[in-house]
Structures are given as C-alpha cells and as structure tokens.
C-alpha cells in the first residue's frame, strides 16, 4: 500500500523537528508515531508532540469581523498559505530493517517527507519489551510529557492488544515507574494521567 505524505519538514535538530502540512489535509493525532525516511535504508521515527496552527493577517481581520460567512471560513481553512505545524519528537530510527531507540545520527533535512506509521509499524517499533525510547519522551522539555506518554501508550497499547499482547501497557507503565521512581513529584502525575487512559 502506498504511503501518504502527511507533511514536509520545516526545521529540525537532533532531538526533534517541525513539520508543516496543508490545513486541508487530515493531519495525524497527538501522540502518533510518524516516520521520516532519510534514505532508502534509513528511517527516523518520531512522535507528534505538539500541533499548532498559526494565524495570519487575514485570520486576524476575520476574527474581528461581526459576522463571517461559512464559505469564507472554509476558504481560509483550505486555501491559507500558513501550514499546520507539528512538532515531532524523535524516538528512534531504523537502519536496514534494524530498529534502534537511539536518536538519529543526523536530523532529516528541510522538506523531507513525513509519513504516518501504520499499526503494523507501531507494533514493530514498540515490540519486544524494549522501552528505551520512552526516555526521550520523559526527557523532553517543550512538550507535555505526561499527556504525550498517555496518548502514545493508549495508541500503542491498543495496537499491541489487537495483536494479542495485552500485557504491553503494564510493561510500559512498569518501565516508566523504573525510570522515575526516584522522582516522586514527576512520577505520580504521569501515573495519574496513565490512569485516565486505562479508565477511558
């Protein structure tokens, strides 16, 4: 199945990148696993850690108008020039079919394509009780780590459960506890957020 491009890279560094996509397109959900191919044999994986929609001059004018026609709103949304921006937190890479949870050796370049990972890819990346990539989320400074973890664990947990691995969520939670058990003030809010996922 041919993969659909969800956006192109705007800027990046070793830990993260920002990807822009046309507002008309349905963009990936917060916490989704995405991939950015660097070459034919090398792929960088990341999680959507933030999505922001910037304003432009027209939006500012329209926002102050007493009434805006629905056609104008749709036109602004579909045809605007400012893209929807997504912050992608790098969590690993794949080189010649070997998945690593280390940061990529070099960041992707501008206008590189970003794709949404399939359930199969999500399971492959999170398989084998290997949770090293969780540290990138926990160490991230500019994203809401607790909610990003919760969103990712909800998606990955559902994918793994669909493949018969219902213990995955618990194993991931145990790994988070291991990493943060010495930091009570950080761990407890994260676990409470995970509790919301479980209860959902």
């Amino acid at each position, binding site marked *: 199945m041919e993969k659909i491009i969800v956006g192109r890279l705007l800027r990046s560094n070793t830990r993260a990148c920002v990807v822009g996509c046309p507002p008309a397109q349905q963009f990936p959900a917060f916490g989704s696993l995405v991939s950015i191919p660097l070459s034919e044999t090398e792929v960088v994986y990341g999680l959507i850690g933030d999505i922001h929609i910037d304003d432009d001059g027209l939006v500012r004018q329209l926002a102050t108008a007493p009434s805006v026609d629905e056609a104008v709103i749709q036109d602004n949304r579909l045809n605007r020039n400012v893209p929807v921006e997504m912050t992608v937190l790098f969590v690993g890479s794949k080189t010649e079919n070997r998945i690593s949870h280390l940061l990529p050796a070099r960041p992707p370049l501008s206008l590189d394509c970003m794709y949404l990972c399939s359930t199969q890819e999500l399971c492959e990346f999170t398989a084998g009780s290997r949770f090293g990539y969780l540290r990138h989320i926990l160490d991230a400074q500019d994203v809401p780590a607790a909610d990003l973890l919760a969103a990712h664990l909800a998606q990955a947990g559902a994918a793994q459960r669909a493949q018969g691995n219902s213990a995955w969520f*618990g194993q991931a*939670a*145990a790994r988070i*506890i*291991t990493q943060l*058990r*010495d930091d*009570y003030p950080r*761990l*407890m809010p994260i*676990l*409470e957020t*995970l*509790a919301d996922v*479980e*209860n959902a």
Partner: protein
Amino acid sequence: MTEKSSIRKLIGSVTGGGLKENLQVRLSVPPQQVQEGSFIVIDSQEWFFYGIATDLQLQAVDPRYALEPSRQRLPENLAGLLDQQTLYTNLVVLPALMLEQEPADPEAQMAWHKAIEAGDKEKPNPLPVKSIPMHHADAFLASAGDVAEIFGKPEEEGNFVIGFTREQDHPVCVNLDKLIQRSSGIFGATGSGKSFLTRMLLAGLIDRNRASVLVYDMHNEYGLDDTASDTGQNVRGLRSGFGAAKVQVVGVGAGAAIRGSVPDFNLVLGYRDLLPEDIELLTLELNLKETTPTVLDALKQSFGSDHWFKAFKEMRRGAVIENEDGKKVPAPDSVAYWANQCGVNQMAAEGLHDKLRRLFNRPYIMENPPADSIQAVMDALKKGKHIVLSFGDFESDLDYLLISNLLTRRIREEWEKITNEFRSGKGQEPRPLVIVVEEAHKLLNRDMASQTTFSTIAREMRKYYVTLLVIDQRPSQIYDEVMSQLGTRVCGWLGDEDDIHAALSGLAGRDALRGMLSRLQPKEEVLLLGWGVPMPILVRSRRYDEQFWKDVKSSRKVGLDQEQVIKELYPD
C-alpha cells in the same frame, strides 16, 4: 547455580551491610514468607554464606510512597506495579558461617574433587564468617541439604533431631557428643517447655549411650510417667521409655514412693556422709551465722569427720544440772558444756544446734543406713546406667541443696580419683557423666557458686569426664563465671531482660539475637546457641509424644565401642 542451590527458595539479594552491622537483603518475596530466625543461605560465587534472619524492615524508595496508599490515587494494576517497585522489605541477616563452593564448571569441579582426594586440598568445612558476600548475591531460604550440611544429618551417629526449621520443617540436629563435651544449659520461662525439651535431650543421650546421666529430679518429672499440666495427657518418663535395665529411679528416703510407685532403690544418707562443708553450703537456706564455720571446725576436731553429726545431734540444748554449790551449770551432754570445753562461743554453738535441728529431723538421714546408697548410685553410673534421683516428698530447697551438693561432692571425688588412676595407668578410663541440675540458680547463684561442687564441675570437671546440664528459668541468677562456661545453650522464651542478657552472655551477635529471644513463641520454639552448635538457629522443637518414642526405638542402634566413644569425646 549448583544443584543444591536450585532446590532452595530464592528470597532476594544482598544490597548492603557488613560483618559488624549484619547483611541487608532486599526481599523479592512478600515479607510473610520469611520469619525472624530463618536460616538464610547466600550464594556468592565461590562461597556460600550461612546466617540467621534477625530483623525485617519495611522500606520505601521515597517515604512518600509509603505514607499514602497508592490505591487511593491509582487503579489497582498501576498501584500494584508502583508498589512492586517502590515499596520493599529489607531482611537483616546475621552472618555466621562461610563454606567454599565446588566450582560450577565441570572440568574445574573434577580437578577440585581430585585435589581433595589426593590430599592436595582440604575438604571444605564451614568456617566462622571472615568475609562478606558480594553485592546482589542471591539469598535463599535454606534447603534441607543446607541444614544438614551445617547441623549434621539426622541419620548420622551422635546426631539428635531437636526440632525443625520454622518455615520449611527441615530437621535440625544437635550433636550429642559436643553437647556433653562441655556443660550445657536449657533456659526458658515457666511453661516454655523446658521439661519436655530436657526429657527429649536426655532420651537422646540415653539412647545413644554416649555418657551416663544423673538427673536431680526435684519435681519428680523425669523418671516415671507424668501427666502434662496443660493437656492432661500422659507423659512418658525415662524409665518407662527405656526400662529399668537402663534407667533407674532412686527415691530419697527409706520406703519412699514416687507418685505411688516404688523406686528401684532408695537413697538414705548416713550420719557419716555429712561433712561440715555440706552444712556450710546451706548457709543461706538455714540462715547460718558467720560463726558457723568455727563451730563446725570445732565439732570436727572434737569428734572427727565421721562422728561430729551424731555427737552434735545427741547434745541437749539448754540442759543444766546443779553443781555441788547448788548453782545451775550446763549438763555434760549439753551443747553449752561442749562449747565451754572446746572454747567455742556458747551462743554460736547453741544457735547452730537450733538451726541444724531441721536436718537432725530429716527422715532420709540415718545413723546406720542399710546400705551405702551413695556408692550404689555411683557404681550404677560407672557401669553405664542412668539415674533419676527423685526427691519424692522432699521437695524443699533444703533437701534439694543438701542431697545434690553432697552427692555431687562424692561424685567429684570419685571421678577425680578414677581419672587420676587411669592417667597413672592403674585403672580403666572413667565413664563420661552428665549431671542434670534443675532449678540451677539455687545451686549456682552468685553467693553459692564459688563454694559448691557444681561450679567446679562447670569450670574444670570436663577434664575429669563430668559435665553439667543446667535447667533454669532465671539464667540471670546463675553466676556469670558458670554461665560463661556453658557450651551449648538451648533457650526457650524468656521475658525478663536480665535473663535474656544472661542467656546470651559471651556470644557474638547477641544484640541481634536478643530481640529474637524475646519474641519466641511461648511454647515449642527454642533458640540454639553457643559453642556446641555451628551457628545460632531458631527451631520449632520436636514434640515429646508417643511418636517421639517410636522414633527413638526405631532409630539405628550401633554397638558402641566405649573406648572409641571416649576418645572421640575427649581427644585431649
């Protein structure tokens, strides 16, 4: 992991500690699966370390995890995962012994065994702990094999199963040879099962026939059948168990009956048997004055060792006659007359006479007893029989102190004599003897210990083949010097802090053991301690019931070579 360690139950791993402050083991199992006193084995590469659990402590990675139950904030499964990683139990292990392991690699193992067989390497034996295991060394609850490795195999000659480990019921043996090589003690508060334990140990000693046993049975418990005070069930006595050919019950006084049964023979003292020093040992009991030794010495000088008692008894107290001047003067057969004649203070002599009246009237002291029953007791012991001296109706402290002191003095003299004869090549080697003393503090307290034969036996009679087995509920009342000589100590529950302190005196790790002793079950749990056991261990004591006697009867009997036994017991 060796074959032996694979059948052990893993309970955690070492996280810290040392020789002085004990080892810390972080438990990987719920704390209820390990109890204070458990026998712990730590597998640390080339060495096994053996120790005893002395404390369990609840710990948390951060105290805040422990302060608030996580289930109040999180769903069950997340709370479980959190508790698993943040709350844990630390086990404190008192290390006692270490043993070199055989190599795990088959080739190295073969070379190791060959070196031992060739005599190039000594066969590893448990050593007192001189080092500590590594970080994260696995800790296990001991298997039956571990218990047997350290405390001996139940089927081996000389080993006697005294009880079982608390959690896993592995049999724990006491080596009877070591038990009798030095004096031993059984301690415990009243009702803690001292008498049952003593019966069992005595049955073991008698069954294995390593030494003769003389029991001073103050309360008539050991010889004949008794009824348990708590269950009302019949408790078999040693003579009932082994028969009169092995165990003889001796009653105090002519015609004595022990709970309606006739003893095998009676112990009657002759006037000649009583020496002034026997009286001096009753100073506290008879409230004798400091003038007593002088008066007794004068009596001995006047009438001789054999006749002083009769002569003094026959003197009349306060008898007077009128002299030629019509003046009242002491009669020639009066105490005062004798005192005046010998230059002894009259008041002191009359006071002593008054106080000895309690002895003059004892029915078991006769001028001419029909037989020398003390000699009969000693002859029986020398021949390998075992004697239970039942005090029958004479259960007072006075009777107990007088008879036990007198008989023990005679035994000491006799065993010293035959040992000296043996050492000068003129006689047979003496039969080892264990004297069992109940209510030992009455004979071995601070005031009396220096004077009685018992303290001499505890201190030095090992050289003369005689040791003590003291039984008491107040070890704190026993003289420190005697306590320090006790090799094996079997301690039941003790409530008093002084008693606990005394029972543990002179032992390594006593601070750690103190709490354990105070938390023993009031019944059927004992702590084995001291020189006679390889390391301290808490055991659930065996039950003294019909099954016990069946086991005794079915145990392997070996025709013992007496000379060999003595050589093993007293190699020096």
